[in-house]
């Protein structure tokens, strides 16, 4: 089996022979993606193609429909779930589409899928603006991440990814174009929803379709006010950081001696509407951060000593105070923070005025340095759910089988967003490289517990959750069937 010759020739005429290939090596290199379930079989694409414009994308999708060839889209290749599940798929790689415009005055950027967060952020910083770099990495595509996930610690102040979507240019699975928001009626990207019912609702829910509903070729994305001071990097490769102006930022690490106190402090920080970042710091995160650049061996040397000393009852919060807009604001925020910390019996410690992983870079992949693979159970719900559900997941982790990593304390990360209206919870589970299936089993157990406890988890298993969550898979199937009559957009 292979892509029909006629179809392939048409693809060549669309993008030029340089930018489409069915060479086995090109296709083999596009077989996998970084964040995917190890148990799912990944097929080598029938060909890989690199369009440079929306018109080319549209033409490719129409060819796929004409010949009923499945297609899968990827962009920076730091991707979640966008791999081929069917033979003779066309892998559409959007890296060459990397145009970027910024409307400085009206706080939005227009980006194509090849633009990554760190690049956008660098251009924004020069203008006293910012976006936020997702935890998975500053080298993730702004478009892909925003339509799929889109969260990061700066979201405490600036909200979640789905809220950042403005005008969207969307090539539907049948090759038809859908323009949304203000773009539906003009060439403006400044406004997101409508007209009328908001079809961004088709684009993503808790997470995105991962290529199963066509291809987003361009979006307007909100950006945010930021300090006007220049932020300079410093330090070596894995020890690099951005120096933060001390009149605008101040980090505090705060140790609480009971989880309840830490949680209540988080709620109170939300009510007081202070800070740019608020999150818990699981000890394993700290371990990885401290031993960055010394490899797996270095990590273990640190951990075997530090791990057993951890007190499982305590919880650490990390708070970045934010003195935007007024010289006295930082002072105010600090006083309020310290009031709250005092009230809940925490021990505050000021941390160096710099940022390693929130502004430009991010380090989710670092966790691999512990020496194996990791999986995570993630949910976006209230701070209360985050705390309750993470306890359940921790228990499963402890009982499941001896983990390769003795965590000594919870691995759960609680990262509230939007001043506490919603919170992310992420629990990590480590396994050796060869032990991928153990991760899948663990994941299944978490999902069962989620279903039983009435928690709301990300990327649920349709078979488990469909019947109890309003039969949502049926609705999705109906929508997909209507928009993808030939069943070509990342099927399977």
């Amino acid at each position, binding site marked *: 089996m292979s892509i029909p010759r006629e179809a392939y020739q048409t693809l060549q005429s669309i993008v030029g022979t340089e930018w489409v290939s069915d060479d086995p090596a090109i296709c083999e290199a596009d077989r996998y993606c*970084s964040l995917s379930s190890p148990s799912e079989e990944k097929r080598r694409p029938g060909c890989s193609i690199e369009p440079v414009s929306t018109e080319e994308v549209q033409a490719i999708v129409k060819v796929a429909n004409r010949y009923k060839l499945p297609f899968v889209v990827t962009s920076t290749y730091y991707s979640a779930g966008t791999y081929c599940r069917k033979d003779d798929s066309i892998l559409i790689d959007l890296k060459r589409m990397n145009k970027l415009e910024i409307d400085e005055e009206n706080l939005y950027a227009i980006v194509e899928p090849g633009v990554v967060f760190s690049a956008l952020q660098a251009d924004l910083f020069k203008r006293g603006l910012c976006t936020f770099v997702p935890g998975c990495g500053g080298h993730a595509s702004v478009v892909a991440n925003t339509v799929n996930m889109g969260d990061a610690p700066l979201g405490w102040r600036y909200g979640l990814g789905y809220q950042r979507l403005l005008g969207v240019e969307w090539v539907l699975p049948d090759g038809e174009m859908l323009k949304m928001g203000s773009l539906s009626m003009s060439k403006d990207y400044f406004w997101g929803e409508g007209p009328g019912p908001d079809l961004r609702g088709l684009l993503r829910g808790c997470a995105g379709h991962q290529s199963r509903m066509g291809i987003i070729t361009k979006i307007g994305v909100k950006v945010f006010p930021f300090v006007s001071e220049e932020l300079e990097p410093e330090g070596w490769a894995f020890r690099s950081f951005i120096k933060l102006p001390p009149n605008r930022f101040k980090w505090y690490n705060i140790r609480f001696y009971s989880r309840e106190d830490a949680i209540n402090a988080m709620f109170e920080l939300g009510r007081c509407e202070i800070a740019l970042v608020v999150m818990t710091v699981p000890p394993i995160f700290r371990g990885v951060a401290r031993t960055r650049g010394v490899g797996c061996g270095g990590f273990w040397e640190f951990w075997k000593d530090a791990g057993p000393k951890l007190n499982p009852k305590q919880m650490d919060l990390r708070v970045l105070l934010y003195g935007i807009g007024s010289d006295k604001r930082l002072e105010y925020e600090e006083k309020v923070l310290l009031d709250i910390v005092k009230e809940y019996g925490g021990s505050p410690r000021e941390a160096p005025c710099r940022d390693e992983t929130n502004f430009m870079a991010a380090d989710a992949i670092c966790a691999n340095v512990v020496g194996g693979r990791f999986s995570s159970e993630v949910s976006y719900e209230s701070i209360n759910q985050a705390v309750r559900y993470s306890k359940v997941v921790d228990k499963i982790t402890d009982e499941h089988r001896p983990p390769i990593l003795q965590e000594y304390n919870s691995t759960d990360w609680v990262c509230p967003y939007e001043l506490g209206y919603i919170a992310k919870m992420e629990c990590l589970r480590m396994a050796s490289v060869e032990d991928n299936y153990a991760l899948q089993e663990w994941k299944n157990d978490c999902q069962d517990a989620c279903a039983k406890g009435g928690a709301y988890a990300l990327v649920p298993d349709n078979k488990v959750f469909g019947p109890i969550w309003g039969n949502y898979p049926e609705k999705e199937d109906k929508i997909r069937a209507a928009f993808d009559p030939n069943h070509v957009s990342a099927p399977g």
Partner: protein
Amino acid sequence: MLKVEEYKHQAATCVRCSYCKFPDLNYIKSSRFSRQCPIDTRYRFNLYSAHGLLHSALAELDGKLEFTPKLMDALWHCTLCGGCDIRCKRNLDVEVLQVIETLRCRCVEQGKGPMPEHKMLADNVKKSHNIYGADHKERLNWMPEDVKPAQKADILYFVGDPSSYRHPEIAQATARLLSQAGVPFMVLADEWSSGHELFATGQLELAREMADHNIKAIKDSGAKKVITSDAECYKTLKADYPKILEKSTEDMPYSVLHITEYVDQLMKDGKLKFRRRVPMKVTYHDPCNLGRLAEPWYHWEPKYEPPNIAVGKTWRRGYNGVYEPPRNILKGIRGIELIEMQRVWDNAWCCGYGGGVGTAFPDFALWTAGERAEEARTTGAEAIVSCCPNCKDILGQAAEAKKTGMKVYDITEIMLRAIR
């Protein structure tokens, strides 16, 4: 060349996060210059990237993939600049560069590679001990009449093929500089090619011959220190020779310094002062072979403890390269204003020449250099300064092609102007 088990382990450890395509994210200064990997930036298919090649390596080893035309194209277009390698060592500690080098070696072993132009280098080296096929007897023709090298001295200047034949002005500047600084130095009467490109193109047998000859010649010279003005020679003598001999740099019978390290030390010791003013705004290009690839080599027999602890391994992470000495020198010359580019030190964008690319794919080398020239232009500097003849060569071509109006100098030329 990695042994099979280790090769497989390294390739399999990659999680395809794509960090290998970017500079240190904290150091990205603009979207325009936000990439690290030349082949990725130019050709875009994932195969043209470190993780693409690592995955191919695994597939080839498992018999799922052959050296197809595209795999050959991607593999040999890589400049081996090592940006991917040190980036990965922020996160995963994969020996990315060694896997790519090993894949090249496997390609050569199977008779599929290297490129015809690379084979010609080997033919030239066999014929006349230099990669250009030039007359070996003319190797020292560059030596200016006003410089008299010593017969016996602690310092040996290892010139390298490019400065001996193509860029004699660099060798001449180096020799005059040492001479005017009052440093007695020798040159080898029978210097052979360092073998740099042979190592890079997987032609290891001949590369080893070069190593054996040059090591013996250095040893026989009685020199205490070997100085190079060529970043490629520097890296080859410092890292490639011990690597092929399965030794560590510290176990080699010589120590090697780049001219900038040596001069920097002389300046610090108060033994050399640049008295003449050189009024010029310059920007400095870090050669990959003097920067992230310039660390000592540490021989290590793979040994792991669970979960993935490399027992007794000393890592090369790219931060011990020669970054500061050239900058110290430029800053120490009156009149020089050093304006940094956006991607510098371990994040420097490759000039495009390395890894045999300048030889086999000059157009791509020029494209890569063009990117660097564009970046240099944004600094507003009048000139680009580097420390490697091949960097000078290709950046010079690019600066002209891009109509930047910028001149390109080797640092030795600048130093010579300042000392005269």
